[in-house]
């Protein structure tokens, strides 16, 4: 076996010190936060993120009878329930869309966000064995947790298309913006999931509180009802929940209906960016202590 010089293995370092006549030095010293090198290293570990995501996908449907159809069954069953309760019994406004379509469109994106946040929050705790025995940029774990849900979303999206055809709904030019809303949903899930993952390492209260918080979040988002119920200055308070804009925007793109307001969207955007930045900073500050605490 010859030691080959051209290896594509990720080269890891937090602080690279250039020295004469040697390669790169990898340093470990107390209290290093985020740095350019740490971010570059994150990119070097993209294959690991992919491997984690693939593992989640593969494991999820092994030894299940319905397999991948769960990706569709889950939103369909929720929508059936909500259609009976809110569509028939309560009769909430739906921006002129059939309740089934209205609810399903919101539901598949919401399920993506809630599943990704849940799995990101558990990501470091669940890979405890790895965190204490292997080095990798810890952010890889919550980030890769946001990926597998995309696949479920895409499968569920096919059913949405079928529904649109069945009800004869033709989307307008806004259809082209669909990827943007999905991306916004990913950003929201990451912005919430990353700090929760770090918090969960230290305080397992997160796992207990999360299902409740997600339920609150669901009803604070326009999934089962239309945001047209919220009027006046409350619209801006409502927009503090980025999903209000994301879900409205997504529905507008795929099924028509009212577009999200410009200033409300701006509020939501600012909230997501602030969450992302503070979440990453918080994660960076505490990540080095994970192996000792988790």
């Amino acid at each position, binding site marked *: 076996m010859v030691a080959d010089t051209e290896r594509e293995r990720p080269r890891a370092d937090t602080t690279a010190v250039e020295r004469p006549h040697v390669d790169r030095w*990898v340093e470990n*010293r*107390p209290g290093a936060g985020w740095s350019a090198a740490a971010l570059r290293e994150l990119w070097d570990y993209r294959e690991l993120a992919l491997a984690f995501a693939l593992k989640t996908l593969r494991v999820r449907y092994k030894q299940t009878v319905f397999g991948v159809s769960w990706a569709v069954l889950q939103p369909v069953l929720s929508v059936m329930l909500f259609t009976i309760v809110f569509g028939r019994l309560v009769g909430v406004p739906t921006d002129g869309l059939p309740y089934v379509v209205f609810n399903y469109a919101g539901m598949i994106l919401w399920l993506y966000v809630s599943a990704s946040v849940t799995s990101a929050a558990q990501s470091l705790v669940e890979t405890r064995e790895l965190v204490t025995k292997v080095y990798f940029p810890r952010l890889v774990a919550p980030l890769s947790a946001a990926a597998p849900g995309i696949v479920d979303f895409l499968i569920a999206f096919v059913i949405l298309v079928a529904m649109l055809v069945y009800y004869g709904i033709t989307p307008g030019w806004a259809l082209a913006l669909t990827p943007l809303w999905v991306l916004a949903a990913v950003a929201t899930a990451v912005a919430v999931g990353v700090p929760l993952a770090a918090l969960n390492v230290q305080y397992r209260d997160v796992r207990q509180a999360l299902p409740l918080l997600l339920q609150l979040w669901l009803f604070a988002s326009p999934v089962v009802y239309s945001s047209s119920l919220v009027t006046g200055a409350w619209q801006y308070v409502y927009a503090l929940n980025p999903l209000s804009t994301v879900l409205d925007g997504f529905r507008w793109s795929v099924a028509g209906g009212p577009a999200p307001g410009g200033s409300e969207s701006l509020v939501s955007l600012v909230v997501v960016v602030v969450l992302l930045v503070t979440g990453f900073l918080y994660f960076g500050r505490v990540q080095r202590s994970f192996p000792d605490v988790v």
Partner: protein
Amino acid sequence: MSVPTAIEVEGLSKRYRLGQNLGGYTTLRDSLPWSRRAENVQYLWALRDLSFEVPEGEALGVIGPNGAGKTTLLKILARITEPTQGVSRTRGRAGALLDVGMGFHPELTGKENLYLNAAILGMSRREVRRRYDEIVDFAGLEKFLDTPIKRYSWGMYLRLAFAVAAHVEPEIIIVDEVLAVGDARFREKCLNKMSEFGREGRTIVFVSHDLGSITQVCRRAIWLEHGEVKADGPSEDVVRRYVRGAFQETPQATFALNPAQRVQLLSAAVVDPSGNVVDVPQRGEPLNLTVRFVVREALPLVDIAFSIHDRRGIRVLDEVWGADTGGVLTIDDPPQEVEANLTVPPVLPAGDYVLGVWLGSSYDGKFLDLEALRFRVWPRPDDPADVSERDRIAQPAVEWNVRRIGAS
């Protein structure tokens, strides 16, 4: 020309909060200022002001009793955890093998786990594809690659795990005790692989309780004790001093319960026939070794093995009890405590020894501690002073017969 340095460690210290790693996680309430737990925080220095250098291509062995800071040192070198003070530098990436089969998922097939495990150890997909045949060959599991590994035996699991680990090629290789699992032939294969790495000029840091493999793989060794370097030098010298110097006062060792371990050692001791600990085991008397385990999983046929190494790291004794020797012990309602006694006839010369203990089931190792107990066999009061100093492995009661048989 001097050899460039591969590892530099300067003033390295690591402090753990006691309970942090042992009692699990904290809850929000515990960190509130009025919490009782917040008041009595205690700290433990796992490493204290450690400094050393390793030149490129050197194999460094690290030895020391449990809790001396060996694993902490490896974790800092591999950047798994950060030091409290000081700095460690490695030239290039340090790949740590602190366990085998990391990230293995029971539901995934052998092939899927192979790729996942390789990614975790830092191999790219391209690299794995290039060396795929080699890895599969090493593991010898071609037929089972599409089988979920939950159907693998422990031996197959280990072979797959090691095949991947052996093909990762970081600049610096850090190995902790992983060779301790598996059977003797497999251990030999792994040691050969390590020696091969060494011949290729890779830098190796190797932690093990198996002093024999330390001297086999490493030319230099560091002896850690309470987080400090107690000795640093040629591995034979350090190992000899370690075994001679670091024996327990009373030949008895007890271990804290750890429910995470499926099979765990509770105690090991030198006892008299009525079960009391013998403070001063003497040469020329039978040596009763007694060991207690907790077994927390059902095991069909239990095998138990004891080994005794002397101060030079030579294995003077290696005895197996179990199916092959007509012993039948089955654990079908775990958890169960198991006691094993071995009486060694009076053959050991005075000196310092290390008892190793292994427990397995149908050749699958479930537990191994090659340093379960260190004990000293004392010379008899009437032994001439020089007898205990002589280099020998065995000193049974021999019978001399010397006489004059007539003039010639």
